[in-house]
């Protein structure tokens, strides 16, 4: 919306109020002067109207720019990951962030002693203690 449109809208309001004052018995000059006083600072009002339009346009531009930057970052990141093995053949083995890496399972513990071996081991310690106490 251009300045001419803003001015047309404001002038229409002042003219309507002027007409009302004339219909109430005022001279056209007095009526217009009063209508302008009642409206206030025309330039200040038009500035506020421009700011109201500009603010929302600025918000729209910022939102668009942010979305473009985010899209560009995502595209660059995804395309670099896709092309990485071609450009750097060795990089295919490098774990990438945000990617599940399949690790080998941890080594399982070997088989333990059989029951007979365990009992024999325990009895060995027990026998030793008993021998000591017998010596005393």
């Amino acid at each position, binding site marked *: 919306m251009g300045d001419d449109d803003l001015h047309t809208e404001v002038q229409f*309001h002042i003219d309507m109020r002027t007409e009302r004052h004339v219909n109430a018995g005022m001279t056209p000059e007095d009526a217009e002067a009063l209508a302008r006083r009642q409206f*206030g600072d025309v330039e200040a*009002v038009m500035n*506020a109207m421009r700011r109201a339009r500009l*603010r929302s346009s600025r918000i729209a531009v910022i939102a668009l720019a942010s979305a473009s930057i985010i899209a560009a970052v995502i595209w660059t990141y995804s395309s670099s990951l896709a092309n990485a093995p071609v450009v750097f053949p060795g990089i295919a083995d490098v774990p990438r962030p945000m990617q599940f890496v399949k690790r080998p399972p941890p080594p399982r513990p070997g088989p333990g002693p059989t029951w007979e071996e365990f009992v024999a081991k325990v009895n060995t310690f027990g026998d030793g203690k008993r021998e000591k106490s017998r010596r005393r």
Partner: protein
Amino acid sequence: MGTPKRDHLQGSLDLLVLRTLASSREPLHGYAITDHIHRLSKDALRVEEGSLYPALHRMDEAGWIRSEWGVSENNRRARYYAISAAGRRRLTRLEQEWADHIKAVKRVLRPA
């Protein structure tokens, strides 16, 4: 970020404008909106033109009202405003907030 007083005043202006446009069967220009509020309030409320037009443009940009150029009753080029579907939803919310505000003030003025 505006002060609470400013937010409150801006909210009440939005409420009055949206209610005026919702009650009208046809689009209204700014002068008709101020005239309508002035008459319905029995001269108690007078909308400042300096606040009305920036508010109209802000609400137009927000999508709560739609605007287009037309020809006035005296054959002048004028900008007409009408409430949108989003504006009606906004109006419902503002009316509820206003009712809650009035209830709260009443509770303070006349404690049970």
